[in-house]
């Protein structure tokens, strides 16, 4: 076990809990730390200085920022790759390993790239691997071995990823002093506020500051806690801003490990690992603060080179001494404070180089860590720590997404938001707006918060004015927002030597200069050519330096050179968070528990889960043909139609005639779109004077309802018709087979089932198994004597079980969708969508009796009338292969010579006939009964098949279903 020999005695603002030690492993060896430590701080406390190797040259990398954005501490934690070690809290039992090194971090074979570094110039990949193209697979194979990043686990992570929606009045992005002040002011003005902070706690730079900063922090945090209407999210980040202030907010690791199960019976009370919040904000206040910018010089990526904020985080948040002997390069007050903090913590500050007084440095020396610094005055100072404080990057990402373009101020030497370009729903506070004391920043932010709330209230007030003829009330007076100043700062971007610009992508200032020399002299081109700003830090550390190097190389100003474009996401988002919970709705029949208990093999039919079969579909077919079978057909679409104008509607949407449908009668109909293409089919029965029940295909219920509503609400608003979908108000079941009537008679008292009283294509209402309000149809999709029963859904299971009990001595059996498909194919009944496609018109169905062109009008009539005159469409026919043992797969082509003249739409082996049967769409000249056609099988064989006289292969006269 390593000792925490670099841990300092307790510090006033430390965030570690010394009473809660933790143990974890790094490179397989045991390490310790305290709760509240990040992975990086815990390791640094034990003296670890090298955490990773760089992307391209495999140079040793240590801490730079000691924060989320630290490019040197991307590590593997258990199965999770690319963990930000400068941010992720260390946990007991963690297995932490370096990434992309072999055989180990200290001795990495790939570090040999440094020896050939001069050949790995910008655009190396573009220049080297493009030709000859035939070698690309080999290149790819090798390059994959050099790909950076950790190991992706084979199995999905067990964590619970989630999403949620939020509708705050004001979202404040950034929980530093300005963000907190803005949030409190907005909430006090009556707004609902979501305050989002990337760190694990509110406070921003105040957290690692001195006594005065900590005092201000305590006051602000107390104010946030005491103010109603503020929801605080820490360890969370606003990753994107889209039109209408639609914000993507990533709420990070609140708890690791498995989350709750689908049934909620375990993991109750647990929190998701990550959650994507989709927030629609009234006003967005961007208070993202400033990110300290590295300095470019030779050796600036050696372990031991730290930014001043990184050093102060280690010292003041985690009580870690970052070195023993330090050199500090400072150009601002934060660098001065870092030097003071180091000295106070017992670090020997060997030299302070004050850029404001003309001091500078040339390079850092050392092999795997800083050992000395060459100063610009010629002195060399031995040290193990170099701290730089040379300026700031303004993370204007969210502002850019809102249409802003940052403006460079050459006096302050940093970018600022261009407030004039921002729309009314985005405001800026804190360092992005300007400089000032904490009190000045807080005062400014308070005014911004009040203005944010005022704008929301104004917008709400305008929306609530519902009468469009009344002009909206005048806007209230805007909140006066005091202006912030801009502090002068020396132009500190690069030293006289070349150094690393993009630490994550291994892009140096020399690379950028080379790119300019090759003609890539704009920021956007150089970015893509060198990959600068395209790594995990996404420009937060390196963008301004990249622009500064390009500006110098092109002899332009930074303002003219401009920046690259910031796009979402601001910070990485895991695929798990993007996916969230898997919402894939499924529909179940009321009989589903019975199916599951009786071994039904599930069939996913659209959103429905249906029983495909119960073990032996062929046997199920025989049960129906020889005895009696029962099938669950609940998914059949059902629409309650009511009103005196229903016949007009039916005449309009069906191709046949409906004016004289008598009460108690049922009729089959085909529905076409206006182009004559078959939309749906089904039967409709008249249950009363104005009451009808329409059935549709299972998948067509919603489409048909929309179709009917479209006609009624847009074209015939004067028709008195009410349409109510009642598909699942009923459990639907079909009792089919020679003994169907006898079985039904045992459970029905109030309906006369005699064939004369209740013949084929009739409908009755009555009681089944003691359940009133049932609808009984005599129709026959299977081709057998059958009754389709629609039972109030809650009683479905009871009726189903009653029918099975009643039919036991008749040998009743259940059958599934597969048996039903065989039965209907034997009978030659088509399935819309299977035997038709997006071009199949009603004229192609081979069912001319159902298309009545002598009707006044119906949807699709003009197209069908034209078809009658210009018949070239495929025709639906029944087909039997000459060799009855061969069953051509569905979609097999029908050939004539080398031309495709049709296809098999349905095919099965018929247990009833003992041979293969099918339906097919064929060219009209092949539709004549007796025609032999050629079916092309997938295995390449061509087999003959004969067109049958009728669609029905079994009982073409319909004797069985009319019995």
């Amino acid at each position, binding site marked *: 076990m390593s000792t925490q020999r670099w841990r300092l005695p307790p510090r006033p603002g430390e965030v570690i809990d010394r009473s809660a030690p933790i143990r974890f492993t790094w490179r397989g060896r045991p390490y310790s730390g305290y709760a509240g430590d990040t992975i990086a701080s815990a390791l640094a406390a034990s003296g670890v200085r090298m955490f990773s190797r760089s992307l391209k040259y495999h140079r040793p990398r240590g801490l730079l920022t000691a924060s989320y954005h630290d490019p040197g501490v991307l590590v593997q934690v258990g199965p999770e790759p690319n963990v930000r070690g400068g941010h992720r809290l260390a946990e007991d039992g963690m297995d932490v390993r370096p990434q992309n090194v072999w055989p180990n971090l200290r001795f990495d074979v790939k570090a040999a790239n440094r020896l050939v570094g001069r050949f790995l110039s910008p655009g190396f990949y573009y220049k080297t691997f493009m030709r000859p193209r035939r070698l690309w697979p080999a290149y790819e194979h090798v390059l994959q071995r050099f790909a950076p990043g950790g190991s992706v686990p084979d199995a999905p992570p067990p964590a619970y990823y*989630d*999403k*949620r*929606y*939020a*509708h705050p009045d004001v979202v404040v992005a950034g929980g530093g002093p300005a963000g907190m002040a803005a949030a409190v002011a907005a909430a006090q003005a009556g707004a*609902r506020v979501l305050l989002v902070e990337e760190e694990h706690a509110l406070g921003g730079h105040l957290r690692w500051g001195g006594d005065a900063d900590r005092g201000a922090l305590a006051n602000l945090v107390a104010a946030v806690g005491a103010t109603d209407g503020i929801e605080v999210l820490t360890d969370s980040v606003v990753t994107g801003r889209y039109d209408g202030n639609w914000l993507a907010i990533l709420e990070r690791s609140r708890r690791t490990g498995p*989350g*709750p*199960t*689908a*049934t*909620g019976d375990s*993991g*109750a*009370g*647990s*929190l*998701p690992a990550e959650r994507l919040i*989709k927030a*629609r904000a009234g006003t967005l206040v961007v208070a993202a603060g400033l990110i300290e910018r590295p300095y470019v010089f030779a050796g600036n990526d050696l372990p031991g080179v730290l930014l001043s904020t990184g050093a102060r985080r280690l010292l003041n948040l985690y009580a870690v001494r970052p070195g023993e002997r330090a050199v500090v390069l400072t150009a601002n007050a934060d660098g001065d404070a870092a030097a003071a903090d180091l000295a106070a913590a017992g670090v020997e500050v060997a030299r302070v180089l004050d850029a404001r007084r003309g001091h500078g440095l040339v390079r850092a020396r050392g092999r795997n860590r800083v050992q000395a610094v060459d100063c610009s005055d010629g002195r060399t100072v031995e040290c193990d720590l170099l701290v730089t404080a040379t300026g700031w990057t303004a993370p204007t990402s969210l502002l850019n997404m809102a249409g802003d373009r940052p403006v460079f101020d050459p006096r302050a030497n940093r970018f600022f938001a261009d407030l004039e370009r921002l729309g009314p729903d985005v405001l800026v506070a804190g360092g992005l707006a300007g400089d000032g004391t904490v009190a000045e920043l807080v005062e400014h932010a308070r005014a911004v918060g009040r203005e944010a709330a005022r704008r929301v209230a104004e917008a709400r007030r305008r929306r609530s004015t519902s009468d469009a003829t009344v002009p909206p009330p005048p806007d209230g007076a805007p909140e006066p927002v005091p202006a912030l100043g801009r502090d002068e700062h020396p132009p500190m971007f690069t030293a006289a030597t070349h150094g690393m610009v993009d630490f994550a992508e291994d892009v140096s200032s020399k690379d950028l200069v080379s790119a300019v020399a090759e003609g890539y002299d704009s920021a956007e081109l150089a970015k893509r050519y060198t990959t600068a700003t395209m790594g995990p830090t996404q420009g937060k550390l390196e963008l301004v330096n990249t622009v500064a190097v390009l500006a110098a190389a092109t002899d332009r100003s930074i303002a003219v050179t401009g920046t690259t474009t910031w796009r979402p996401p601001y910070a990485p988002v895991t695929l798990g968070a993007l996916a969230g*919970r898997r*919402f*894939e*709705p*499924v*529909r*179940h*029949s*009321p009989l*589903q*528990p019975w199916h599951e208990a009786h071994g039904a093999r599930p069939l996913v039919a659209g959103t*429905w889960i249906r029983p495909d079969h119960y073990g032996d579909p062929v046997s199920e077919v025989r049960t129906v043909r020889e005895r009696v079978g029962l099938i669950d057909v*609940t*998914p059949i679409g059902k629409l*309650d139609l*009511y*009103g005196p104008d229903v016949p007009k509607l039916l005449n309009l949407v069906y191709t046949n005639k409906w004016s004289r449908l008598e009460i108690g009668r049922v009729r089959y109909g085909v529905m076409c779109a206006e182009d004559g293409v078959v939309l749906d089919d089904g039967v409709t029965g008249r249950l009363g004077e104005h009451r009808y029940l329409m059935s549709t295909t299972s998948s067509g219920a919603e489409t048909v309802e929309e179709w009917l509503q479209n006609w009624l609400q847009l074209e015939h608003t004067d028709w*008195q018709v*009410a349409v*109510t979908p*009642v*598909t*699942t*108000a*009923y459990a639907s079941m079909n009792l089919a087979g020679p003994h169907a009537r006898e079985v039904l008679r045992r459970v029905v008292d109030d309906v006369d089932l005699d064939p004369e009283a209740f013949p084929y294509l009739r409908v009755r209402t009555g009681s089944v*198994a*003691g*359940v*009133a309000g049932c609808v009984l149809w005599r129709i026959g999709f299977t081709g057998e004597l059958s009754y389709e029963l629609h039972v*109030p*859904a*809650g*009683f*479905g*299971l*009871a*009726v189903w079980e009653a029918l099975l009990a009643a039919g036991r001595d008749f040998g009743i059996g259940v059958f599934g969708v597969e048996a039903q498909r065989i039965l209907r194919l034997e009978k030659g009944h088509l399935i819309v969508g299977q035997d038709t496609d997006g071009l199949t018109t009603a004229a192609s169905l081979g069912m001319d009796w159902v298309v009545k062109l002598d009707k006044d009008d119906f949807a699709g009539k003009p197209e069908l009338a034209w078809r009658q005159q210009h018949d070239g469409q495929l025709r639906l026919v029944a087909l039997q292969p000459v060799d009855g043992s061969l069953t051509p797969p569905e979609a097999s082509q029908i050939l004539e010579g080398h031309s495709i003249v049709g296809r098999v739409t349905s095919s099965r082996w018929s247990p009833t006939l003992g041979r293969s049967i099918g339906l097919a769409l064929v060219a009209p000249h092949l539709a004549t009964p007796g025609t032999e056609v050629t079916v092309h099988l997938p295995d390449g064989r061509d087999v003959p098949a004969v067109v049958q006289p009728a669609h029905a292969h079994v009982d073409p006269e319909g004797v069985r279903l009319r019995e």
Partner: protein
Amino acid sequence: VSESVVARSPVVPAPPTTVVSGWEVSARRSAAPLRLSDWTPLAKVLLHGPVRGEIERRLAVPHRRSGRAGAGRLVVGAEPGTWLVLAAPGTAAAVAGWLGSVGAAAGEFHRVVDVTHGRALFRLTGQDSAAMLAKVCAVDLADEVTPNGAGFGSSMARVTTGVVRDDVADEPSYLLHCDRSYGRYLFECLLDAGAEFAIDVDGFTVLDGFIVSDG
């Protein structure tokens, strides 16, 4: 309906079970801060009529609002020109008769349809109700946007769902109804979403607002 025949919800009731007005329901009682119960047995009757007509004036419940009518009936302005009435189990016929009389008195074309068996209905109750629903529903559930009595339709875990804010004893409570076939799926999704709030399944309790007329 024969007394021996029991109606069932799409959700298997948590034990112990009992029978209320011919429906098998859960008799489980939970005191958890966030509770989900299956209220599918409630009578649910639709009335279709003209938009902004005499029926609407008589019912006095506009679109997107709900209100109590006599005999513990909750009238919801479900869609323009469509009202859904929720009432105690076993009272669908009485409710249908009442709605028919409203339509007849108004003298307007109307249609009354009993959809008791076609809709699954759940009640979610607890202070965290809105926070939980925010995981599956994109509508703003803040009090000022959807106060008690609000009624609206929304996607909930990608299922078209009717939502009625119907607070109980000062606790936020939502009635959620969807096509019965989606009931089991939606119930499971709600439990999943509520796990972080320690949600628990509560049995079917008939509240004062939904009086059981047949005892």
